[in-house]
């Protein structure tokens, strides 16, 4: 098991946002996490990547307990996140953003090869190399956020709503690219509002409601599930 989250509790001040979340991700899988606004999807991802600290429960990565490890060390261990809202460095160039993604990497040859691969996945990032990231379009910024996370050569890639605010055609392109990334051996955890697209891509999925996992199944089964259809797939 690559990633295991067990009975995870996370609080913001006095308010508990996650009330015991458990999930697991196998090597090579694409796992979708679905849920309404405020269900706790972002909180779950941020706890895994170390941006938020858990108040109880455990997170294990390759069997090692990581819920007390600082975020910057987790990157070196192979966990990368493209966070909610993209959070690219707007006043730095596209190239500087990508280089920062490889901050923990030291092998120059591998970094260059990886950059080339990312430029193949998202050719626009090669064209816009010297442009300030803040001047990219929303879709291009999303590509940069994903490309930047990939620069860390992660074992597991955490994506928080990569389709948010993108035109349908672009969503299709991005999901196509996620499939390529997965085929290259990167495990993916995908948080999405676009449940249909996410479940089409994913192997398995979890459904969250108010800080808890309420459903877990194979993706096809969730797509066929009447509860899920009613709540997240527009009937």
């Amino acid at each position: 098991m690559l990633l295991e989250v067990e009975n995870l509790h996370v609080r913001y001040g006095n308010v508990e946002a996650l009330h015991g979340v458990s999930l697991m991700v196998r090597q090579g899988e694409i796992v979708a996490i679905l849920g309404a606004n405020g269900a706790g999807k972002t909180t779950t991802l941020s706890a895994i990547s170390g941006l938020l600290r858990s108040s109880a429960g455990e997170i294990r990565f390759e069997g090692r307990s990581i819920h007390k490890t600082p975020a910057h060390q987790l990157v070196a261990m192979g966990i990368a996140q493209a966070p909610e809202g993209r959070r690219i460095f707007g006043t730095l160039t596209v190239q500087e953003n990508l280089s920062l993604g490889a901050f923990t990497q030291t092998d120059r040859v591998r970094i260059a090869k990886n950059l080339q691969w990312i430029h193949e996945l998202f050719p626009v990032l090669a064209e816009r190399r010297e442009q300030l990231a803040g001047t990219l379009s929303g879709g291009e910024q999303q590509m940069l956020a994903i490309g930047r996370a990939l620069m860390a050569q992660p074992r597991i890639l955490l994506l928080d709503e990569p389709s948010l605010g993108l035109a349908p055609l672009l969503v299709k392109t991005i999901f196509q690219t996620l499939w390529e990334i997965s085929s290259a051996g990167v495990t993916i955890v995908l948080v999405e509002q676009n449940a249909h697209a996410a479940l089409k891509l994913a192997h398995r999925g979890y459904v969250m409601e108010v800080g808890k996992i309420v459903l877990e199944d194979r993706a096809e089964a969730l797509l066929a599930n009447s509860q899920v259809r009613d709540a997240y797939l527009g009937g």
Partner: protein
Amino acid sequence: MEEFLQQLTNGLAVGGIYALIALGYTMVYGVLKLINFAHGDLFTYGAYLGLTLLTSLALTDRLGFFMGVLVLVLMVMGLVAVLGVILERAAYRPLRESPRLSAVVSALGASIFLQNTLMLIYGARFQVYPDNILPVTALDLFGLQVPVMRVLIVLASVVMMVTLYLFIQKTKIGTAIRAAAIDQGAARLMGIDVNRVILLVFLLGPALGGAAGLMVGLYYGQINFTMGWVYGMKAFTAAILGGIGNIPGAMIGGLLLGVVEAMGAAYLSIAWKDAIAFCVLILILIVRPTGLLGERVADKI
């Protein structure tokens, strides 16, 4: 014309000093969104440590003037950098998660503490740099007689600024500092240890501020334990002028303020010298609160 050029070179020397101090304010603000009010006092420590080391180690006797002063600058920078790190540990780190106002109060407290410590050690009177070991000769620059010390100060501050600029712009660590200044959380997701970035900023800023303090001692010969307040306010003005958080902005703001002040003192009234900086501050806050180089690009959300 002669008078104008003299004022210009003088303004550049003083401006270089302002710029070096301003860099400390702007770097700390960039990463922590905090005005380090004790920064002016670290500058004063640079002047006092410089005086003590200069007289007690007799560096200029042993190594000659240039090597002696170079070693002195490096020692002062190193020592004040250590003070900066201690300041961060003692006054700011414990309050990292507290409301902004707590850190401001802590900064003011640290400033008072540092100032009074200095007064208790050295006394409240002006201290004087020895004038017999420093060159008083003038250099002939295309017919203009400029004091050697002035030329050295302009050169030294420019070298330090260019070095810092290249470090911030061209190196991996420098890019990490810029990233942490934009978004600490996102920087952590890149694998950047933000605590180490903060530590580095509290090494670099005070090192430059300490060097500036030493320069003031060497340039004017007289130092006082409260001088960090006036220089601090002016450098802070320079940082705002250039756009707080913006590193090239602090450099340009400092040099500009130095020149404007020198010109104002020469052509308007010497009595208004200190007021000019504050007029500039008020003007910039009204006309262009983001400073000259502030907010070049708005982030798209």
